[in-house]
């Protein structure tokens, strides 16, 4: 598949590994009104890898790796906006200094970049480690016939397209996806810019079977019908958005596994093929070259 790079500019972005935060009361409230203490919400999470089920842990918004932020809020939004799937991350300080990882995705609302590292590197990393992301991808577009039919690309390094189970013919992009779900399943993230904010899917272990999401894994691709994410995420009949799952489930109402949009367009130009043997982003391929 060809990606047009109309002079896409790369920027080196500074950040730090997030230190998880909680309020003075440790409790959040789940959809049934029960209090819980959230774990794994930001910072470094160990033992969760791409390909794991989004329902495998009892944490909250658990991401497979490290969350990256910046202490200045404007710089944090920029770090989030310009970081794209496939961008290289370099650790600058701490025990893992010199090691590299790769951007998987991002989260709203204050903005976080989710980056994957090998188990060995992640075990040596700690909150406040300085990192640099080579931000590259926003502004890239698909080859002419597909672009002209209105299909856009976001949050994706052109070099990382090869990691995705997508194909193109003359004027159509087709993606293998775990499931295709209606836009009403999308909660937190609607009405927000997808360059800075992922879309939480309002699904848990109990509701997953009705949506074809029982086997949903970190790194899977999912399609959403009637969703247009070109200028904020919102309802538009006949459009489709396809994204990658970047974090796990949440007990909070309106939250759940996070989908970072990658492609959006009229449904006849952007096709989703629901595939029982779907394989999303492969960790070994994503991290190839970082060792």
């Amino acid at each position, binding site marked *: 598949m060809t990606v047009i790079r109309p002079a896409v500019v790369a920027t080196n972005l500074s950040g730090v590994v997030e230190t998880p935060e909680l309020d003075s009361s440790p409790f959040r409230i789940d*959809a049934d009104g029960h209090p819980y203490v959230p774990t794994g919400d930001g910072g470094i999470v160990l033992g969760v890898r791409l390909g794991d089920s989004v329902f495998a842990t009892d944490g909250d918004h658990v991401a497979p790796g490290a969350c990256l932020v910046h202490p200045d809020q404007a710089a944090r939004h920029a770090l989030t906006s310009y970081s794209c799937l496939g961008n290289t991350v370099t650790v600058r300080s701490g025990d893992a200094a010199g090691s590299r990882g790769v951007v998987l995705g991002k989260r709203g609302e204050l903005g976080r970049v989710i980056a994957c590292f090998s188990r060995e590197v992640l075990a040596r990393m700690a909150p406040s480690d300085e990192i640099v992301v080579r931000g590259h991808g926003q502004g890239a577009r698909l080859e002419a016939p597909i672009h002209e039919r209105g299909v856009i690309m976001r949050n994706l390094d052109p070099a990382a397209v090869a990691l995705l189970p997508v194909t193109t013919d003359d004027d159509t992009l087709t993606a293998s996806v775990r499931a295709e779900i209606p836009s009403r399943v999308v909660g937190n993230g609607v*009405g927000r810019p997808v360059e800075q904010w992922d879309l939480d899917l309002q699904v848990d272990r109990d509701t997953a079977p*009705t949506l074809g999401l029982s086997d949903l894994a970190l790194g899977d691709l999912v399609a959403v019908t009637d969703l247009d994410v070109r200028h904020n995420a919102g309802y538009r009949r006949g459009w489709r958005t396809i994204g990658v799952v970047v974090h796990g489930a949440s007990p909070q109402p309106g939250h759940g596994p996070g989908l970072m949009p990658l492609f959006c367009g009229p449904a006849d130009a952007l096709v989703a093929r629901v595939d029982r043997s779907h394989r999303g982003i492969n960790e070994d391929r994503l991290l190839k070259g970082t060792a």
Partner: protein
Amino acid sequence: MTTMRSGLVTNSGRLVAQPLRGEVWPPGGDRHAYRVDADGESFVLPGMGGVTLGVHPGDRATGYASDHLEPGLSIRHREAGPNWALQFLSCIGNRITVRSGPAAGARGVVVGQHAFVLADLTEADLAEVAPGDVIDVLAHGQGLRLDDHPDVVIKNVDPRLLSSLGVHTRDDGRLGVPVTATVPAAAVGAGAGMVSEFANTDLMGAYEGQAADLSLGLEGLRIGDVVALEEQDHRFGRGWRPGWLTVGVISTGHCRLFGHGPGPSSILSGPADAFALVDEPEANVRSAFAAIPQEVPA
């Protein structure tokens, strides 16, 4: 236990009222000025924050050259803690009093929540209010329970408003609620995943004047309309949940920003089979406000 005119049995006699202070908060902007709509068209339009004139309960919610239209006064406290108290504890139907400026002494009523507490005044009084004027809200209503409807959570509503809205217990035990519209879950935009004691649920599909593929048939909503939201559980936040239902009062109007729109503040939420919705084109707080007694709750 208190039995209302409607026959609803509540704990309203055990609730306390508190005056909470805020101020009319000015509209905000940034040096880039523009936002973009669903089609990528840029706009700079008023509506959010400050004093927004000419739109009151009963008036159309959409069709204005406006973004995030907040009718009347937009009220907050400048410090975080007192502001959360003001936002979380103010209820639809609560009385407000203007405490400074040329309109000092004027009385109004809370219409709902958004990024601010929103309050309606007469057009003559509104004309005299400016950002920075001090407002007191007599907060009363959070903690309300419906004794005969244990599965239904009620919030954000002055107990005295309930009967006037026609909410009642039916012979079959269900909660009867007159509504002007039933909103599909596909309309729920920004606000999903947030707490339901603050702000509201932006409804998409009401972009009057824009493309047909954006419409969910909600362009006729009015400020103050009581509406039902299908497949929404707002008891402890705001989430999509098949088999559940939420009732809200439209407190904000026209949006151009995509994924946003006229929004209901949530007042009732529970299993869908706990409710019996009644189509009532006049289900609007406008007439209900007039029926609220003026005196301070004892």
